[in-house]
């Protein structure tokens, strides 16, 4: 059965199921379908099959998948005591009120507009536009450097909150003001990072593996899928946690020098077998450009170090490495061709 006929069938069914439509209209469409079938047995069978496909897709089989997801909501809404225990085990010093504060953040904190509308507490969002790196002083005197194209949200009453909870999109370096009674929590992508007072870097761009690298102090990183918490990975200086998206697991790794993880603050870019898709993303954020390629660079990787150099220099190097032709037109780079090693 061709697409034109399917269109006709769908139109016929829609009209037929709509009580507002006239009998004449239905009859007219029926006639059209009959004309197409032309009393041919094969075609009539196809029409019949089409109508039964319509019938048999009217309802969604209930596979129960909604239940699991609904359970998460219910848990967030009414099982505060269970979570309280879990968290108290982690941070015995935390007060009950502080725990409730953090729990409610699970409920509302994932979506900043929802928070602003539902509660009296206002949330503030700071964004570093592409091409810019900004320094943000939080109400509790913690300092944050935001990489280009990243944003951070925090409640205005952060200083007095039981848990100092903030939300990060992208990459940032944190210097957290020490306050053991009020743990500092960063939620980013699928992980959350808890500290008392340290400095660390979080990379959590959408679509790539989130990483937390510790420069000083102690940090606990855990998964954060829809509010559910798993056990934490504890990190010391010169260690990092990487969230493996495929395994859905946090892995701890040693790093030679954690300071290189914050080289971006001085405009440097370090690529180490970095997928080209990610390289293009990093460049487009850093230089506030749009990159348009005429082919996919899947499975291409780049290893290179750039100091804080001009875009043209970066492009020249990439151009040579992958045999790419490119033109830069205002804020857009058009890339043609390209071969992986």
């Amino acid at each position, binding site marked *: 059965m061709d697409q034109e006929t399917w269109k006709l069938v769908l139109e016929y069914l829609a009209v037929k199921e709509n009580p507002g439509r006239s009998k004449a209209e239905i009859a007219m469409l029926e006639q059209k379908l009959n004309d197409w079938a032309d009393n041919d047995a094969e075609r009539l069978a196809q029409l019949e099959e089409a109508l039964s496909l319509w019938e048999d*897709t009217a309802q969604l089989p209930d596979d129960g998948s*909604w239940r699991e997801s609904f359970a998460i909501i219910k848990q967030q809404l009414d099982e505060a005591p269970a979570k309280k225990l879990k968290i108290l085990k982690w941070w015995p010093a935390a007060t009950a009120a502080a725990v409730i504060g953090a729990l409610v953040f699970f409920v509302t904190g994932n*979506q900043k507009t929802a928070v602003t509308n539902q509660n009296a507490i206002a949330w503030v969002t700071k964004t570093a536009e592409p091409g810019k790196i900004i320094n943000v002083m939080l109400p509790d005197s913690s300092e944050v450097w935001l990489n280009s194209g990243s944003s951070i949200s925090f409640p205005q009453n952060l200083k007095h909150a039981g848990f100092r909870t903030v939300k990060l999109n992208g990459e940032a370096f944190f210097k957290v003001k020490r306050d053991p009674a009020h743990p500092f929590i960063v939620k980013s992508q699928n992980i959350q990072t808890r500290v008392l007072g340290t400095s660390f870097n979080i990379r959590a761009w959408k679509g790539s593996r989130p990483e937390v690298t510790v420069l000083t102090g102690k940090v606990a990183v855990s998964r954060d899928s829809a509010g559910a918490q798993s056990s934490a990975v504890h990190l010391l200086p010169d260690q990092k946690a990487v969230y493996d998206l495929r395994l859905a697991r946090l892995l701890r790794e040693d790093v030679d020098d954690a300071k290189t993880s914050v080289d971006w603050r001085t405009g440097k870019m370090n690529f180490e077998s970095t997928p080209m898709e990610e390289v293009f993303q990093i460049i487009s954020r850093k230089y506030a450009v749009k990159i348009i390629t005429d082919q996919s660079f899947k499975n291409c990787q780049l290893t290179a170090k750039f100091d804080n150099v001009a875009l043209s220099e970066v492009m020249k190097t990439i151009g040579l490495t992958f045999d790419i032709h490119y033109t830069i037109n205002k804020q857009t780079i058009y890339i043609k061709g390209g071969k992986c090693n």
Partner: protein
Amino acid sequence: MGENNTAGFNDDMEQKFDEKTFEDLYRRMYPTLKNYALYLVKDIEDAQLILNDVFISIWKNGTILTNEKAYLFRAVKNAATNYHKAPKANLWHIDSEEEIPEITDMKETPAQALQNKDRNRVLYALIDQMPERRRLIFYMYRIDGFSYKEIAVLLDISVRTVEDHLVKGFEFLQQKVLKNRFEFR
């Protein structure tokens, strides 16, 4: 200090909204809304978070909505839009019209499902193999009863594209069914 002053806490949660109604609403709306959120944000965990936020805020408002379907889809769309306010990371990516190859490693392959002889289930197993957008349109049209026009608005595409996807979707089902005519009764 600060014990009673916690971030984002609203302690007079109203329970007017009947729990059963809430659960029913969730069960009915979950499949398509989830697909819709996923379509908008392209990330399963984020889609789940957005969906949960929308439902939680409904629960907190404690109100039953008059046009719940339209409201929920709009709410998810708004949430996804705000969520995207953070600069898009995939600027370089050219958004081609999706013709994703069929996914083969599903939980239940059509062949296995065919043996269950449960036509409705088999058909939805096939529908779930369709490219993302087509599958979503199929759900919105067939399960939620949106019109071509409503779907077009929610997805920011043309009415003609909606129709085209549906036609191709049904055509795909028909071909699969014909191919497996003998097992498929």
